[in-house]
């Protein structure tokens, strides 16, 4: 019997981006959860019955709760701090390297190969 891998959580404030990620990742065999900001992402991850995530694909600039605040909350939570995070941003150089607790930083716009390679490499 094949063990089911936990889903990939995609966090972005753009609905079409969420839709496109869902289609392409599901097509590649991943289960996908979506959230529109950091707050929604925390709620998703903390649902007692909900599946844990194998990876978090995180947009940086979002309303309500942005990536930085989300990352700070994640570090405080022992159940979340080991889920790998891949940041998607327009300007990776703005951070001066990979921020602490982040597995990789991808530059938008990104192609399908880059996306799938990052997920294959970092997903728990």
């Amino acid at each position: 019997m094949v063990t089911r891998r936990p889903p990939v959580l995609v966090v972005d404030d753009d609905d079409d981006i969420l839709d496109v990620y869902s289609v392409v990742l599901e097509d590649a065999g991943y289960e996908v959860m979506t959230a529109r900001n950091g707050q929604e992402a925390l709620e998703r991850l903390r649902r007692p019955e909900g599946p844990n995530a194998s990876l978090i694909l995180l947009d940086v600039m979002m309303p309500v709760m942005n990536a930085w605040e989300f990352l700070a909350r994640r570090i405080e939570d022992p159940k979340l701090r080991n889920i790998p995070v891949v940041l998607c941003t327009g300007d990776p150089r703005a951070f001066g390297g990979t921020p602490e607790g982040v597995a990789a930083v991808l530059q938008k716009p990104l192609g399908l190969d880059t996306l799938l390679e990052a997920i294959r490499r970092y997903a728990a």
Partner: protein
Amino acid sequence: MSHGEMKGSTVAALLQLGARAKDAWEDTVQDVLRIDADVLGVERASYWSLRETPPSLACELGYVVARPGPLFERGLVLLERDCPAYFSALRGVRVLEIADAGGDPRLAGLEDYIARRAIGAILDVPVFVAGRQVGVLCHEHVGSPRAWSERDTEFALAVSHAIASALEARARSQAEDQERRAVFLAETSALLAESFPGDRVALTAVTRATPTLGDIAFLVESEGDLVQLRAAFARRPEHQALVEKIHRRYPVPASAVHLGGEAMREHQSVLMPVIDLAWLREAGIPEDELRLIAESNVRNGIAVPLRVRGRVTGAMVFASEGREYDSADLRLADAFAHEVAVTLDNVRLYEQMRAAIGARDEFLRMASHELRTPLTALTLSADALAGLVDAHDFESVARLSAAIGRQAKRLARLVNRMLDASQIGAGELGIQPEEIDLAQLVRDVAGAFAGEVRRAGVDLVVDAEGPVLGRWDPIRMEHVVNNLLDNAVKFGAHRPIDVGVHAHGGGATLTVRDHGEGFSRHPGDDVFRRFRGGLDERAFGGLGVGLHVVHEIVAAHGGKVSAHNAEGGGTVVVVDLPGADASRREA
């Protein structure tokens, strides 16, 4: 030694003293007056210069035999209007002899002056230079009346000639002054050029101005309806308190009465030979400050406008304790102020240019950021489509195609906004009005958003019962509605959005209301400014210039736009457009 015996040698000494160099003028007169008082046996000897506007006598220097020791005084001013008989008595006499100062009609108006000093007799000699009366040498005998002897008057006349020589020597050195002033201006120019930013220039200007142009200098500039003090400086410690008071008094309304304000309103230099405390009191200067002015002995003031490229941007004020400003001082002050105004203007232009470049960089950064999201959707979709078609997963193909369509529209809107913003930045936002139905336009734009709002799960309620007719630019107005809807979708927290268009008084009102978080604080007008510091993300919705573009397009139509937090949550943006007549037409 009798007066007579002293006279010969003293006159020689006086003539010698009178020939001293100009920069020793004060020392010369000081020595002359002391010897003069000794020889004549009077308690007070002073030299007063005659001024024309207003007609007055100003004490250049007075020697007073007092306890514990002699002292010098200066700065007192007698206005002709206060004692006209005295002024007319001085005209046309070689010597004005008053043996009994008490009750003499020629001293009418000076009773208080005479009583306070217990003056018994007066011997005054007009001082002439090149045939023109320039001042008066005054002798005041304290106590009882005194009959002046012929020797007394002759000696007094001789002293007046000595003072005249000293004055002539001072006049001769004015050519040298001209040269010194040219050097002063050139050095000022070099100093100012090294100063940056604007506040630094103002500080350099006021410190540099003293003592050449006055004991106190300050610089004010217009800022909207206010006049702001940029810098003030006093070289002498006894004037510090006054400068601090001046600091505390500003800003003042542009309409306030003050020397700098006069120069700014009249666009010309103002010379106040006698600082008139009554005028200042009328102007609303507080009593404690008037007292400071009186105590500081500041008696004369010059105000010159800061003028550049045909505009008056502020003024510099110079005030002085003892000196009498003349037209040469005014010219120097004018030239000085011109150097300062040009430097301030250059610094301001440089700062504006730097801010504009910064804004452009920020604009490009935001533009590239905003373009990346739709590009990501398009890139991923393009990469995935072929595989999905091969796998016959047409449901996914349909989902991606819909996303591609929406994101392509979004890209088009972003590109339009970039173009609008760049035209606004270049001052080339053209408005081409034509007869349109705004209600129809809003319905069309809202229709184009249908896919997007449905996808976001947002209820877009359009209340646009038409027609709402007027002459507006259809393309620009479409951009206005697009920008407002973009913002509402982005910040509306997926709650309903209400759009309304209504005709009113020949114009139209467009409202867009969301039910999101609203502004974190009251937005005010600056939400429409392009690239504010400490940005509120809402203002940067879409391309970060959405509201700015809306504001500029609406303003170009002669309309107004306002934004505020709505009661019950969310944000309302209200656009008021005038009808056809008020719109500004541009090719």
